[in-house]
């Protein structure tokens, strides 16, 4: 509705700057006159004005512009309206590199923080690029691979943070993006770097505009699509890395500013390139001045980066409604797996046997309090097993549900990067736990579980409502989940930056721990897994037929929306049950289906069974390793699963990618 008001980008920029400037005038107030007083005597207010207020003002403008420019370059070169420095996982990569350097080379922080952050961002960007660029670099596959790399980097950072929370607490502030400054160093060092990037971007206007013709079209007018794309992404990543290393992670500006420019009528790339940075600068100025106003009013520490997420997320949700749903070809049923041998009959039995051995081994092999390896002596069974078997059983059951859920989502969307974590249900459950921690004094596990269930349920309803509007278009459901997850991350970042001890509890919950599972919840998990296994069985037919297209499905008498909705609900319920028991974060729902396909299990039902079992086995190993690796310290199973699963996934994807990538990089 309000969109129509903004007839042209210039109007938007004018309004934003008017608002931003009046807010800063309000914040500065009468202190401005101090500038005209003689400089002789010491006045703290004047010092603040000169060394804090004005540099912060300049930095907000510069950072906003740089992030927006980065966003517009990424969005154009990837032909993806949802690309941005944060969604591509580069910020998480920079964060990980800072964590590692702080822990292992603390003194190197002094001279090379920029370099360290930029190196981390570059490495993760290369990975995202390599994985996401297969098969014509579809927007969603880039976003999802960015998200996965981001998750992996965050998981590894989280492991170190959980083990060294007191030492690394300063990094939370960096992660939440604060614009507080005490001098002109930051804006003055950013300015030339940003100008250089702007110049390069300006030189690329023509070739990048041609990319709108599509890869084939651009090629036919003699453009090296590959070179332009690589250069554009490099500029974008470097820009965001400069900013990130200077002030921390400030999300959503790079995503939202170009979108607003387009909504306001900047159709051509050249227009977007001019207007987006101006809009970004205005946006961040308004946000930052609001942050100053709010923190003065409440006396609380509000990092600007968390606030941009809060303002930006609704805008992105609005954009989702306008995003065109692409027609998809059927998923690569014949493609992908390199092996094509017939699946032997004994495969399921072999899988079951492996799982059974795994369960027994995970329960019996462990370490004594002294740290020595042992097979649990019979005498200790009664006292130790009640704390061990529930974890093993819960990890296995939850992971199998996630694996099955992953197969459903991947086949339904035709996108092999889809995974249950992205449904937003995990974010909902975590938000529920956060609410419990903050409203109920000393919330016990049962209370947390109830709140988590409500959170998951609330998101489930939202997902369904959103689905109703879009005819259950799976892409949109997944992207909404991505936004919810980002919003939640911002909330936790805000809490952690303020030093709230409850943030550590939330981070612990998000890391996917089995340590709070007791015998009752383990049995509940097992029961859920069995019930859903029975429900999944009849869904196999739908999953085989739906990807063949609406017409085919219709011809054999399937009502497409009903089938889609049922499958989504089934997958959401399985995710919710698993999340309640072992927390939200794990790669297993994503990796399980891939391992199954790699083993040659390509029918819907057989992939589902194989995917569930592979996921279960992976989680079993992850949970066991998490308990053993740093004994008596325990690593959350979810984090271990991410660390184990991601390399497996990447190697499978890269192997299958070789052909596709060559085609794309012509």
């Amino acid at each position, binding site marked *: 509705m309000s969109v129509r008001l903004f007839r042209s980008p210039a109007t938007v920029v004018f309004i934003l700057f008017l608002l931003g400037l009046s807010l800063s005038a309000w914040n500065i107030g009468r202190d401005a006159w101090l500038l005209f007083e003689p400089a002789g005597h010491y006045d703290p207010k004047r010092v603040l004005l000169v060394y804090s207020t004005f540099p912060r003002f300049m930095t907000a403008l510069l950072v906003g512009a740089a992030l927006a420019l980065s966003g517009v370059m990424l969005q154009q070169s990837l032909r993806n309206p949802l690309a941005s420095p944060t969604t591509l996982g580069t910020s998480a990569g920079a964060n990980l590199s800072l964590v590692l350097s702080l822990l292992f080379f603390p003194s190197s922080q002094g001279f090379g923080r920029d370099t360290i952050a930029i190196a981390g961002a570059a490495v993760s960007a290369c990975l995202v690029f390599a994985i996401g660029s297969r098969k014509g670099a579809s927007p969603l596959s880039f976003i999802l691979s960015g998200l996965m790399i981001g998750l992996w980097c965050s998981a590894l950072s989280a492991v170190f943070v959980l083990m060294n929370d007191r*030492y690394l607490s*300063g990094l939370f502030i960096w992660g939440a993006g604060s614009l507080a400054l005490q001098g002109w160093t930051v804006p003055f060092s950013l300015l030339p770097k940003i100008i250089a990037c702007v110049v390069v971007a300006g030189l690329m206007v023509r070739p990048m505009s041609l990319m709108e013709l599509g890869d084939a079209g651009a090629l036919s007018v003699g453009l090296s699509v590959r070179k332009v794309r690589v250069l554009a992404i490099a500029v974008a990543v470097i820009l965001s890395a400069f900013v990130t290393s200077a002030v921390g992670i400030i999300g959503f500006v790079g995503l939202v500013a170009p979108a607003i420019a387009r909504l306001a009528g900047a159709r051509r790339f050249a227009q977007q390139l001019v207007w987006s940075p101006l809009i970004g600068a205005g946006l961040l100025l308004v946000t930052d001045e609001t942050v100053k106003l709010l923190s003065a009013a409440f006396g609380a520490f509000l990092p600007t980066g968390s606030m941009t997420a809060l303002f930006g997320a609704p805008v992105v949700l609005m954009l989702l409604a306008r995003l065109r749903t692409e027609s998809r070809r059927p998923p690569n049923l014949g493609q992908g797996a390199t092996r094509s041998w017939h699946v032997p009959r004994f495969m399921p039995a072999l899988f079951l046997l492996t799982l059974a051995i795994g369960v027994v081994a995970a329960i019996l092999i462990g370490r004594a309090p002294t740290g020595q390896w042992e097979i649990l002596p019979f005498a200790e069974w009664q006292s130790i097993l009640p704390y061990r078997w529930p974890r093993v059983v819960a990890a296995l059951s939850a992971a199998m549900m996630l694996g099955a859920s992953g197969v459903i989502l991947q086949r339904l969307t035709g996108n092999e990067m889809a995974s249950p974590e992205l449904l937003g249900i995990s974010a909902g459950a975590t938000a529920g736990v956060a609410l419990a921690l903050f409203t109920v004094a000393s919330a*016990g596990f049962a209370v947390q579980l109830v709140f988590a269930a409500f959170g998951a349920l609330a998101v489930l309803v939202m997902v369904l409502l959103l689905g109703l509007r879009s005819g259950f278009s799976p892409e949109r459901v997944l992207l909404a989940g991505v936004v919810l997850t980002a919003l939640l991350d911002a909330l936790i970042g805000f809490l952690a930056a*303020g*030093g709230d001890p409850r943030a550590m509890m939330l981070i612990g919950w998000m890391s996917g721990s089995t*340590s709070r599972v*007791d015998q009752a919840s383990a049995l509940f998990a097992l029961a859920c897994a069995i019930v859903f296994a029975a429900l999944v069985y009849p869904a196999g037919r739908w999953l085989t037929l739906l990807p063949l297209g609406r017409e085919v499905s219709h011809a054999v008498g399937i009502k497409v929306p009903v089938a889609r909705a049922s499958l989504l609900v089934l997958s959401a319920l399985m995710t919710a049950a698993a999340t309640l028991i072992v927390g939200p974060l794990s790669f297993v729902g994503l990796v399980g289906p891939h391992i199954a396909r790699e083993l040659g299990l390509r029918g819907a039902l057989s992939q589902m069974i194989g995917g569930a079992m592979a996921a279960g086995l992976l989680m079993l190993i992850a949970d066991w390793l998490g308990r053993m690796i740093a004994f*008596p*310290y*325990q690593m959350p199973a979810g984090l271990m699963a991410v660390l184990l699963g991601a390399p497996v996934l990447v190697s499978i994807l890269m192997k299958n990618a070789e052909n596709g990538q060559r085609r794309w990089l012509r």
Partner: protein
Amino acid sequence: MPQDLRFSRRLLMTLALTMPWSISRPAQADEGGIVSLDYGLASTMLMLGVTPAAVVARADWQQWVVDPPMPESVADLGTATEINLEVLARLKPSLILSTPFLAASRSQLETIAPVREVDIYGGGREALPASIVATRDLGKLLRRESQATAFLAHAEANFADCNRRIAELSAPPVALVTLMDERHVRIYGGSGLYQGTLDRLGVKNAWQAETNFWGFQTITIEQLISLPENTHLMIFEPLTPPDILQRLDDSPLWHELPFARAGRVSVLPGVLMFGMVREAIRFAELLTDRLEQLA
């Protein structure tokens, strides 16, 4: 009969050989030790003359608590967010001391041993008076009432001594901070342990603005400019990264802050923020010594 006797003697011998603990520590095998899931409670136990059977994050004790030293024999239970229940169960403790912060694990802990939650930092109450009450309660619980009384008397005498020494100095107001990075600090006050100790010593806290539930606030460095002119800034160790003071030195605003202009900045050894009476004594002594050096 003789055969039975021989058999049972052999059995006893076997038992004795396989389970040496049943002979060397007959009493404790039944009784079990006391486990603390909180650093402050563990240091209070040590002061009452009870060595905990295990604590969480034993490995980091030396870095964050320093004093009193934790005996080598004490077992490590892992991090507080993921307590190693297997290690805990095998210790067969008789009592687990916990805090409301760990309420989510309580039902599991109770299957191992009775849990006693001690609430010091939960309800936004004053940390030092709450710690003193908790120490007395702990003395009753552990049947160390006389030790608790003696320890608290020692604490009071210590505070009084520091108070007297400081009164002679006409000490400046102090601001207590931990540097988070070169742009942000955590500043202490409110209901926290440091504030309670400052009150006992008769030292004025320069930071009178709001703090959170736990008695600290994250602020940006330029907010320190609002502190009174004669404030002395006390920075707690550890300094992360180690070169952070040099980097502050590059900041022009830092040099404009009143305490930096006058050179009234010192670095204090770290004291456990979520501590109890022992940590308050340690902080009182460190602060008094430093203020005397400065005078």
